[in-house]
């Protein structure tokens, strides 16, 4: 059966790549490829300095920091179960494989095989990104090390997803089948929590002393008995990557490969247990609750008055309304909104009771995430053309100018991302609210908050135009749909995309930003910090001019895109 799976995976990948390569007959795609290769060259080759860079000093922490990162990635998988998409089958796979003489274990093996395409591609990217002078013994060994690490993480998160799914669906029955996994997880969580608590007195001063001091403190803390045992398997996964000679690598590769095999066995066995648990639960359900279970919940479909769509007005607003509705209806958006509101209230209360501690950490974290979301956010929020281009036929049949379609679609994701950022900034604002000693003072912080809140929609709109523009210009190459390749396996490609996007957004903001700063500098002496207001208005005006030009161009491209020739990639 593995031969059939290999054939299917290989031919599907080959045909997909061939289809995308055919686009190179279009000069636009050819230019994009040239740009991409140049970008990769700069990232992977041209970056190598003649003498060892300063970051080499950091290589001695690679194993420890990497191990901590792996723990974070794995815990994330346990908490959020993000690997469900690995087991998402296409309609064709369901039709041919589920009805065919293929065992469930065979299906899992097939999906693991398909996931290898993504892992191998990202292993290659990471191999290029992590230049030889910095990490690893040789490019080949580095590539193998990265592949082993990413595959092990992928297997682990898939196993975690099985356990989660089984617990959520089959409750106590699944608990018995998962007891070993859950005991190990529980021991890890307790051990990590205890270790952090134990090391906190040393880590906190380390943090205050800067990154190097903190990493030294972390190294000391990791050397204690309990953390050393807990970290051992995770360090083993990362160790081959940090090996500098062939001998070191061979010694490190054994345990890493052993862990990989163990994870494979766990995933396959976990699936078998899942199947048994499912069968058992199905029998029990049939005995105890024969009535129909699935009843659609209509409460979520009632909309607040704010979301009522008037029958007349700007026609493209219907697209904006539709895309916002998709977010408002999603459980995740509701959970995030509720969590931010709760965090703002709690952080605000804590800021008065214990200034300078938990609230302050929460404040800085929220500020950091708000800032990062400018560049990472467009990867998460995709309720725009990146989702709707899959329905290009439908969009093209509407009586709307291409410019209006692009404007409305982009506005939807901009509003959602801006809402998320404002939520994070409000958490930060409230977290610092009670801190009377903080510099800048509350008044200035309020002005800064209002200025940032005013500027964010413009900056985000420009950013989302870049993202949507990429989808319009290169529909055959940009991943379309609400989901996107994610997880640690796709981290390499996502990182490259984020860096390239940041550079484009930065370039777009240079001129408006300089004009805004100039306005601020000219008026600062006259009206003090209030000069931020006219400065931000000038910034927004500059962005508006750029956005209008982009909309005009992209609208034209949208209107001239032939759905039959676009070969849209879902």
């Amino acid at each position: 059966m593995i031969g059939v799976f290999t054939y299917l995976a290989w031919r599907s990948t080959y045909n997909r790549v061939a289809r995308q390569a055919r686009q190179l007959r279009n000069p636009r795609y050819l230019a994009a490829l040239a740009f991409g290769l140049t970008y990769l060259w700069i990232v992977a080759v041209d970056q190598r300095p003649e003498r060892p860079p300063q970051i080499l000093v950091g290589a001695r922490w690679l194993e420890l920091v990497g191990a901590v990162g792996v723990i974070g990635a794995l815990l994330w998988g346990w908490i959020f179960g993000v690997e469900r998409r690995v087991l998402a089958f296409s309609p064709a796979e369901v039709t041919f494989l589920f009805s065919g003489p293929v065992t469930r274990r065979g299906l899992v093996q097939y999906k693991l095989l398909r996931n290898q395409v993504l892992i191998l591609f990202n292993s290659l990217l990471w191999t290029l990104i992590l230049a030889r002078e910095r990490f690893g013994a040789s490019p080949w060994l580095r590539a193998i090390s990265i592949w082993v690490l990413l595959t092990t993480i992928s297997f682990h998160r898939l196993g975690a997803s099985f356990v989660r799914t089984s617990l959520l669906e089959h409750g106590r029955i699944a608990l018995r089948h998962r007891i070993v996994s859950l005991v190990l997880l529980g021991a890890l969580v307790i051990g990590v929590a205890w270790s952090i608590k134990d090391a906190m007195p040393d880590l906190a001063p380390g943090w205050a002393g800067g990154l190097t001091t903190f990493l030294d403190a972390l190294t000391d803390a990791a050397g204690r008995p309990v953390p050393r045992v807990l970290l051992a398997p995770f360090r083993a996964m990362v160790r081959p990557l940090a090996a500098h000679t062939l001998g070191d690598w061979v010694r490190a590769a054994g345990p890493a490969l052993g862990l990989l095999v163990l994870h494979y066995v766990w995933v396959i066995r976990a699936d078998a247990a899942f199947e048994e648990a499912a069968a058992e639960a199905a029998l029990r359900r049939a005995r105890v609750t024969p009535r129909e279970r699935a009843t659609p919940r209509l409460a979520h479909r009632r909309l607040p008055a704010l979301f009522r769509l008037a029958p007349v007005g700007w026609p493209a607003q219907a697209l904006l309304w539709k895309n916002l509705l998709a977010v408002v209806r999603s459980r995740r958006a509701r959970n995030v909104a509720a969590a931010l509101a709760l965090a703002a209230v709690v952080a605000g209360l804590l800021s008065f009771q214990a200034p300078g501690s938990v609230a302050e950490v929460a404040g800085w974290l929220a500020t950091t995430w708000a800032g990062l979301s400018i560049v990472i956010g467009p990867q998460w929020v995709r309720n725009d053309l990146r989702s709707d281009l899959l329905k290009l036929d439908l969009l093209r049949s509407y009586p709307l100018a291409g410019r209006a379609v692009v404007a409305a679609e982009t506005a939807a994701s901009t509003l959602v991302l801006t809402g998320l950022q404002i939520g994070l900034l409000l958490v930060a604002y409230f977290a610092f609210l009670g801190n009377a000693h903080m510099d800048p003072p509350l008044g200035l912080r309020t002005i800064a908050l209002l200025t940032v809140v005013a500027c964010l929609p413009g900056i985000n709109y420009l950013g989302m135009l870049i993202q949507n523009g990429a989808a319009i210009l290169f529909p055959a190459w940009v991943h379309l749909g609400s989901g996107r390749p994610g997880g640690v396996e796709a981290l390499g490609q996502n990182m490259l995309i984020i860096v390239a996007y940041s550079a484009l957004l930065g370039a777009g903001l240079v001129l408006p930003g300089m004009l805004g700063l100039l306005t601020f500098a000219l008026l600062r002496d006259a009206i003090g910090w209030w000069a931020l207001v006219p400065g931000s208005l000038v910034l927004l005006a500059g962005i508006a001019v750029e956005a209008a030009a982009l909309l005009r161009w992209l609208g034209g491209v949208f209107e001239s895109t032939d759905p039959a020739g676009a070969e849209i990639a879902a």
Partner: protein
Amino acid sequence: MIEVEGLEKQYGDFPAVRGLSFAVRPGEVLGLVGPNGAGKTTTIRSIAGIIIPTRGTIRIGGHDLAAEPVAAKSLLAFIPDEPHLFEYLTVEEHLRFVGRLYQVGDVDGRIPGLLAELDLADKRTALPGELSRGMKQKLAIACGLLHSPAALLLDEPLTGLDPVGIRRMKATIVRRAAAGTAVILSSHLLHLVEEICTRVLVMNGGQTVAIGTVADIVASRPALSGRRLEDIFLALITPDGDARP
């Protein structure tokens, strides 16, 4: 209402449609028939403004589709064979969404009647994921009919409908045409075409093979006299004109 002149669509070296010209007047139902790959869907999608023709002119209600796409499309409704729906919009919200796109002022007044006409009244709050294939098709049809289009383009409109739905759909098409809508209907169901179309356009290899009423087509080929549309169709598209099974 719908005027097509010298329509051509080329995919690389492959000509999907070649020099197609015809017109559909208000109240007329033109049946578009032809074997697979004849160019029917390309033609209908070009008229809907989805595909950009390589050459030729398409006018809807006097508006050139290339020069005034928004004005032309606002008179049109395109109902594809595969219903494209938005997963987070309920049945009623789909209609409100389309109502706003086409600026239907009395959308509240039209929705109940349309839902009743298409047997969707008890599905107002259902999401597409909760609808059967036929129900989804009915919703796509309702979306197309909401703004009372002057030109209606139907690509295999009966796909997925049950017998009751088929009968209702046929009645709806006839009623809309009687009210002055110009209809183009692409279908492989020749009995449907024969039953409700006032004229037939037979395509093969991207070209017009015959156009007119069934009587006109038979009159131009006396050998086909007394045959049903299915026999006429087979005779027209097979190289030797053989209509035998």
